[in-house]
């Protein structure tokens, strides 16, 4: 009985793990199988008006670029403040609480808020800029918590060494702490990028349109994105189930998976350097 216990249970318990791994493989194979056939150069480079996905692909990159460029300095600065400047203050506590709350807000609520605040109240309309700002709110907690972790891992002795030389605090942060935390910061930013790349609900009514001619020329114009275009294609266009949607899904999947793998590699490679 006892032997059976010890032998059988590990096997039984590894079944659910196998199920989950199979899910992952199934997703990759079922999207990838058809997607790879539909994916070709002309699809990527021709305009949506000719049946391509050029605008939504570049639009997704616009979305990513802007949101991350805005959110990274804000998130890292918040983390620096929390770890380096505001030990155990009341404000520190409030900020942590706020970040935790933000992390739990569903993306559709970011969409509602973005529409009410950025598009309407600030008068930015349905635009690239509104989308960026909405996404910044959404990925801020990801970048903050990743950065806080990265910065807290920097050994105190580095800070002491620089401070003892007479370096002012801000220089210690800039010259020593941030470079030492760089891999961790990069990981958190990459995860933020991954989140933005696949986001649909938050940009549904803040920045995306299904169809537009060309790319936005100012930040106040709306933009096409892979996720939104795919969404409308699937929800509103009956019979659009072969070819193009698979190719778009594969692109998204490839992007998100490679970003996560990259983040993983950085994390493993730089683990415990000192």
């Amino acid at each position, binding site marked *: 009985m006892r032997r059976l216990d010890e032998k059988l249970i590990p096997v039984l318990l590894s079944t659910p793990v196998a199920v989950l791994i199979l899910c992952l493989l199934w997703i990759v194979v079922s999207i990838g199988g058809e997607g790879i056939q539909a994916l070709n150069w002309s699809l990527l480079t021709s305009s949506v008006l000719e049946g391509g996905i050029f605008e939504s692909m570049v639009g997704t990159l616009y979305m990513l670029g802007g949101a991350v460029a805005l959110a990274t300095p804000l998130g890292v600065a918040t983390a620096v403040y929390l770890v380096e400047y505001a*030990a*155990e203050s009341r404000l520190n506590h409030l900020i942590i609480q706020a970040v935790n709350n933000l992390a739990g807000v569903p993306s559709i609520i970011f969409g509602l808020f973005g529409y009410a605040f950025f598009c309407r109240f600030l008068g930015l309309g349905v635009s690239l800029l509104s989308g960026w700002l909405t996404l910044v709110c959404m990925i801020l907690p990801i970048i903050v918590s990743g950065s806080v972790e990265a910065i807290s891992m920097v*050994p105190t*002795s*580095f*800070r*002491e*060494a*620089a*401070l*003892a*030389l*007479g*370096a*002012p605090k801000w*220089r210690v942060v800039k*010259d*020593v702490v941030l*470079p*030492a935390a760089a891999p961790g910061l990069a990981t958190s930013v990459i995860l933020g990028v991954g989140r933005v790349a696949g986001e649909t609900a938050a940009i549904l009514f803040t920045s995306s349109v299904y169809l537009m001619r060309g790319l936005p020329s100012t930040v106040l114009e709306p933009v096409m994105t892979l996720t939104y275009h795919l969404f409308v294609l699937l929800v509103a266009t009956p019979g659009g189930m072969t070819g193009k949607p698979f190719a778009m899904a594969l692109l998204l999947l490839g992007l998100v998976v490679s970003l996560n793998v990259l983040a993983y590699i950085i994390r493993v490679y730089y683990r415990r*350097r*000192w």
Partner: protein
Amino acid sequence: MDPKIEVRELNVWYGNHHVLKDLSIKIPERRVLAIIGPSGCGKSTLLMTLNRMIELVEGARVEGRCLLDGVDIYNPGIPLTELRRRVGMVFQKPNPLPKSIYENVAYGPKVHGVKDRRKLDEIVENCLKVVGLWDEVKDRLNKSAFELSVGQQQRLCIARALAVKPEVLLMDEPCSALDPMNTRIIEKLICSLGRELTVVVVTHNIQQAARVSDFTAFIYLGRLVEYGPTDRLFESPVNRLTRDYISGEFG
């Protein structure tokens, strides 16, 4: 001669823990002062109050006066960065910055405004020569400082501290993590540095104190028990506690 540093009735607390009690001491210029005493008596704390690194410790409170060249370093008008440039520190565990060997030494001067590359090269070379590291590392100045052995790292840290031309050098058990060879090198270095600047070195090794220092202070339970020229203190300690400690009866 005026003392370089004069500590008057210094009291330090960590929270409610009273660590240094009414400690007064005059530290002479261009001499080596060794601070000895059993573990936990407050040696490191005393060092940290001398360049205000103690302010990094949460809950630490300092009362009393610490005069550097007659000016109280706890005076709110004192620029902290300049104070720490003048009063350098070497830590017990070598703590090179995660930068190249060159950058480790050049970092201090850079922070204090030296921009000229040639000037920096010169400082780096001189300081590495002083600590006897130049010949060992001159071909790999751009390699990470972590590639050095622990002993070399500690000498690098000393070079880094010297690069900002301090007037006082505080060393907290600088040899405790090192092998005998590096220990010997650093002891020699301390002796020669003592002619150029004021060195305060904390050590657990009584022989080391005798070898390197001109003056020795014995601290026990946060109080200065005995203080005097090293020869005198080791040959004829006045206090019984000092005698017991030096003869290794406790500690």
